[in-house]
């Protein structure tokens, strides 16, 4: 199954309660660049797409990965996007993405002035690699056990999975909920 070669993937945690406006994240992300808060990647730039409804929100662009204060699906959240520069297979990349998303969320929650919190009981995983992981049943069948295994380890308990966006042109996606 070629899905193990999939390189690009996203993990999103949803903001709870009343999330801050996207523009409030702009100075925070700029500071993250200045302070090199991610020590094994180069953070490059910040872009505010708040004018695009339900779009990518505010992007912190990096070399190997991006962080978005994402607004897609009409729900704000922290979305980690692994783009490149990670050896290994999809399991390893999923593990890394979960870890970094959780770390990023904790870091944002630690930004007192932002007053943001992210739930840990719902996660969206998207595989942005239509070559190795087209949005079809076979890909989902291969992805499902991997996500379950990684999510249970990362979230510390059993999870339920729900495929989302089946039959659409969007990427292969799965919603994870803590059981």
């Amino acid at each position: 199954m070629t899905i193990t070669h999939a390189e690009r993937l996203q993990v999103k945690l949803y903001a709870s309660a009343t999330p801050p406006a996207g523009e409030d994240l702009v100075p925070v992300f700029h500071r993250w660049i200045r302070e090199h808060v991610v020590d094994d990647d180069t953070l490059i730039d910040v872009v505010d797409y708040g004018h695009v409804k339900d779009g990518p929100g505010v992007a912190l662009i990096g070399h190997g990965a991006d962080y978005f204060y994402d607004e897609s699906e009409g729900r704000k959240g922290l979305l980690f996007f692994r783009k490149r520069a990670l050896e290994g297979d999809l399991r390893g990349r999923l593990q890394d993405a979960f870890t970094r998303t959780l770390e990023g969320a904790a870091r944002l929650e630690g930004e007192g002035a932002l007053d943001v919190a992210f739930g840990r009981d719902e996660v969206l995983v998207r595989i942005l690699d239509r070559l190795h992981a087209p949005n079809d049943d076979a890909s989902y069948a291969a992805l499902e056990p991997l996500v379950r295994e990684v999510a249970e380890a990362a979230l510390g308990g059993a999870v339920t999975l729900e495929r989302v966006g089946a039959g659409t042109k969007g990427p292969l996606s799965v919603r994870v909920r803590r059981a």
Partner: protein
Amino acid sequence: MPAKTWKSELAGRLPEELDREIDLFEGQIALRKQGKMDERLFAETRLRRGVYGQRYDNGLRDDGTGPKPLAFPCGELTKGPDTVWDAPGMQRIKIPYGKMSAEQLDMMADLAEELSDAILHVTTRQDIQLHFVHIEDTPDMHRRLASVGITTREACGNSVRNITACQFAGVCNDESFDVTPYAEAMTRFLLGHPDVQEFGRKFKIAFSGCDDHPCGLVTFHDLGAVGFVEDGKRYFKVVVGGGLGAVPVVAKVLAEKCPEEELLPLTQAVSRVFARLGEKQSRARARIKFLMQKFGIDELRRLVEEERKLLREDPRWTDYLSHLSATDEEPLRPGGPLALDGAPATFRAWAETNLRPQAQDGYYVATVTLPLGDFSSDQARVLADLARRYTGDTLRCTVEQNVALRWVSGADALALWEALDAAGLGAPGAGTIADPTSCPGTDTCKLGISSSRGLTGELRKRLTVLADDPVTRPLHVKTSGCFNSCGQHHVADIGFLGVSRNVGGRKVPHFNVVLGGQWTENAKSYGLVVGAVPSKSAPEAVEVLTRAYQEGREGDESFQAWVQRIGKGTIRKLLEPVSKAPSYEEDPSYYRDWGDPREYGTGDLGVGECAGEIVPWVEFGLTTSEQEQYEAQDLYDAGQHQAAAAKAFASMVTAAAALVRHLAGQVRDEPSDVVAAFRRHLVDTELFFDPFVKGKFADYFFRAFERRKFETDDPEAVHALLDEARLFLEASHACYQRLGATPPPSAAGLIQPAAE
């Protein structure tokens, strides 16, 4: 199992030539990585495939405390001079005359999501751009685009860029005929044509179906073709040598009446003349407008006619004429009446500005307003589905950075709008003051000086109310982040051009306010700078100007006529209250640009302890120069062209003298002395050089000096001189900022005290 590749996946499904070209490009990427290809050659190679640089790709980023290196893993590897290999770049995707299919849009949505930041950006030349793309992802991107019939070939570089045309072509009530098949034929004919490979600069072509409306904007193109019919036969008026850029030039008529069968050979002849005689060494003077200025339009026409005679017959010149209907579009659904009665008010408001009846009964063009030209991958897929469901697959990007859906039945308009609105695409105001356009500016462009997108985003929020007033609604507001004018501010009613100013020893982002441009009649005339305002005051400047226009206009006087009548002096007085930045201590927000919390460019300028209190003499000189430019504009407006030219030149002398004195002490006020000292101290030392265009602005000064008797009364030539004087002053400000309030010892050490 070995990993699949897009190359293997798409094998046999790409047009052979495109497939080969992309393989070649992939090979060139490998060669460059192995150090076997020169970086300059590689840069032009990738540009010709639309793979462009982006801000910070020199590996440096000012984080608000000064420029800091960005640590990319590629080490010393570059993809061009001063362009780090790993730094993300921009992919420009050529969309000939803006026309795209739902399938193509779906593909671009996927690519934006996987390889960019999930945003598609429509440019003012009907392209789509994706940002933050890694060079090594581009060959597969190109393959996937080729699989849906898109090539990025010659999207950038010194070649024929995207050929644009009015988005209403074929469905317009006012057009002479549909120019689509001609734009298509020209695109195919020139793509990769050997006669367009040796240009010194880019070459932009536009089509229009009529002379009166602005959709084609032919007058600021290198070559423009306006269709008309006479005695039942189709002709084009062909114009050449137009351009915006630093000094805008209105194209001149090359052929009043070019028969349709002559259009391609004539263009080929123009291309050959441009390739042969156009400037190659100095990029700053390499567009065809300079060739036109050098020879004059009559001599250029003669050269083109001579060249035309030498061309060998090519069947492609006329083959397409036998099947002009090949580009015709078919509606999917029967036309029907637009029912506004009883429809929601929000729909009616949208219909008023965003629906335009087609020439074909019962059909409309629906314009989807895109804020800042941006839409997400999710929205792109919605648009593609709606195009399939309602229109028979007919989408076009517009030069106002929107997307048009053609062949919408009036009976479907409400359902279409509801679906658009649900996706966040149902905003009204297309083509009004509430729909300002902008170039990328400092957000992503390497050359940006001020945040054109940041300002435009702010204007969008504030100008909606002005769209309710029929007086201000039709005004166009356009913003460029620098003098290259990609935001087309010269042809806006109110244009903004990003510049930077020194206030109390700190840089403050500013915008020049450009008024009086004409959008109609294919953007027939260009505006002039009336002054600069701090970036943070630019929205107030719009409010001040529109309020004064609302209150002071006579009858149905246009904005342009109002500007002309009350004069720039009065306008400067109106703007005075919003022209000055407060001190840093009073309001530091002026020292940051829109949407950017970093201090604006302080890293480039050491701020001395007393910098906030002492005004160096050079600043007085630059201010005086500015004042002289205003006087030159007033003289120009009064029709005193020679006096205006002399005053514009005097303003250049004043600015140059201020810089010379800043560096070298004394110089007499005689222009010849100032020129000599300026050349020695600022040009020979390259201190005046712009990082990108080098000595271009100094050349303006030297040329003005050579022509200093100013006997010309030609308003266009004087207008150009005024523009050049303005740019020279901006370059002087920039030079002063680089030097700092106290010139660095290294600069002072380079020069001897002036002997004058």
